[in-house]
């Protein structure tokens, strides 16, 4: 446990450093923020999604997905933070994040902090919105079971958005069958954001 000694200087963030979760004042209280950081630890030890480009956006998205699973009465992330919400999985565009692959953020993956490892937070809006649609279509209980298996059993470090779709459909087939409504609805949810098995990602420097 580490407490800072000089009050009055706010650290406005929470992060996972590979060994610890670090919380600024007011950032440890919201359940979805804690779950978000905890899920980064899970991802580290399971799919180990590389924190850049599409795999980094998936890394961020899974943290939001499981945050939403424990804070279930809205689709905002961080609404109880001192500065208010950071993202909206139902409406990513509300915070400038894409909800469809046509609006993919093409900031490069370089060492400039401005570009956020190839826009990992921004582009998480796309898989975030997929999950929102899946829950609307099949319910959270089935949706979260699919996502947990996708993250812990199916994805690999360099998986991208289409790999996410393929993995989700595989798990849906395993759990519910290929002719199930769950399978069909998951397929439609991905298609709604432009992921139908044929999406070709834009060329992004460093990705």
């Amino acid at each position: 446990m580490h407490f800072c000694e000089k009050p009055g200087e706010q650290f406005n963030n929470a992060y996972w450093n590979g060994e610890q979760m670090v919380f600024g004042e007011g950032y440890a209280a919201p359940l979805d923020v804690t779950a978000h950081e905890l899920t980064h630890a899970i991802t580290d030890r399971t799919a180990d999604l590389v924190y850049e480009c599409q795999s980094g956006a998936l890394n961020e998205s899974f943290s939001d997905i499981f945050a939403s699973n424990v804070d279930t009465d809205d689709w905002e992330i961080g609404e109880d933070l001192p500065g208010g919400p950071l993202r909206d999985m139902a409406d990513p565009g509300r915070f400038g994040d894409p909800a469809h692959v046509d609006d993919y953020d093409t900031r490069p993956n370089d060492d400039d902090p401005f570009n956020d490892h190839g826009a990992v937070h921004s582009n998480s809006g796309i898989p975030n919105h997929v999950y929102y649609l899946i829950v609307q279509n099949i319910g959270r209980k089935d949706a979260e079971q699919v996502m947990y298996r996708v993250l812990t059993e199916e994805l690999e470090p360099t998986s991208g958005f289409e790999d996410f779709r393929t993995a989700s459909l595989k798990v849906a087939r395993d759990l519910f069958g290929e002719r199930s409504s769950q399978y069909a609805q998951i397929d439609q949810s991905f298609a709604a954001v432009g992921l139908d098995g044929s999406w070709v990602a834009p060329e992004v420097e460093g990705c």
Partner: protein
Amino acid sequence: MLRRTRSSRVVFAKMRSAVLIAGLMTLAIAGCGGDDESPAGSGGPGSSGDAQLAGPLTFTRGGGIAGRADKLVVQPDGSVSLTTRSGGERAVKLEPAELQTIADNADSADLAGLPEDSTAGRTQPDAFGYRVVYDGATVTTESGSVPDRMGPLVATLSKIVDRLGAK
């Protein structure tokens, strides 16, 4: 507001158990400090208190749980402009005392003597990344790895970015 479903509790309990079993759970709470363990404030050891900016100073802060992308440019006359991810830009003029603090902090940081890459060298999801470009030197660093003598500068500039209200 924080209602949990039974199934989500089961899934999340699995996740928490995995982390606990792996022995990963160490909690750090940073209740203060402009960033990390570095105290904010003017100068510090070696600060003259009457330094002046030798030219424009550019401060970039990216990432964080919010996915920020902020670029702040401070001119020697106290004019500052902040550019954000959305393309929005704000321009203001700093009070002389705050400009003096930045100049003193920059002087004490002695950026030219720091490694250009002062990052941890490992993945830190949601950590802030920082870059300062000033007087011919460029230093890139991140939360948890900010060099001690650069900490006050990062803290001062972060406060200005926060105050200007960037997402």
